[in-house]
């Protein structure tokens, strides 16, 4: 538990550092704001339109396959650690598990959703 408590304190220390630097900078920096300054940067032109564009859902497919494989990776960690006690038996069942998921990856591959056109 103490190990985790130390991390918790460390998080607060990190937040503290960030806040302190922001505070110092706030005290030091100048502030001459005028309307043109608070426009979005667009290579010194007047911004055209908004950034409210919608993206291609190819990005989404990648995020989705990522979630599934992230779960797979999380399963692999206890497996790798318990491996010493389980031996070949564990290997076979994990190969099966990986094979099932790799089939999914290759399915996505064959369907062409992994291709970046």
């Amino acid at each position, binding site marked *: 538990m103490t190990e985790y408590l130390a991390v918790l304190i460390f998080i607060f220390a990190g937040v503290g550092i960030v806040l302190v630097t922001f505070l110092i900078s706030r005290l030091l920096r100048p502030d001459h704001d005028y309307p043109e300054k608070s426009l979005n940067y667009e290579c010194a032109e007047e911004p055209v339109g908004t950034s409210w564009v919608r993206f291609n*859902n190819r990005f*989404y497919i990648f995020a*989705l396959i990522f*979630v*599934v494989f*992230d*779960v797979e990776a*999380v*399963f692999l960690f206890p497996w790798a650690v318990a491996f010493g006690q389980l031996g070949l038996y564990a290997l076979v069942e994990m190969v099966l598990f990986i094979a099932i998921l790799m089939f999914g990856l290759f399915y996505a591959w064959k369907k062409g959703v992994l291709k970046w056109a």
Partner: protein
Amino acid sequence: MPVSAFLVLAGVLFAIGAVGVLISRNIIVLFMCVELMLNSANLALIAFSRALHVVDGHAFVFLVLTVAAAEVAVGLAMVITIFRNRETINIDRISILKW
């Protein structure tokens, strides 16, 4: 700390999730409420594990996490398709099964 304190907390979180499902019209928030409810069940499982000194509950939690991931993956794919077809994330507008 008594284990029941954790169980009550799990109950509170579950209830918040349930209320969220009922009052939310935004389909994405609705999904997040489902996740919250799933995780409150996880909290209860772990609390019981702790009370009974067995790790079986931990294995269940692992499986629940997987189910949650799969559910979100397919669910959000559907949300995207619905949004592109009907330009809405209001679940009251998505009342017919065919589009």
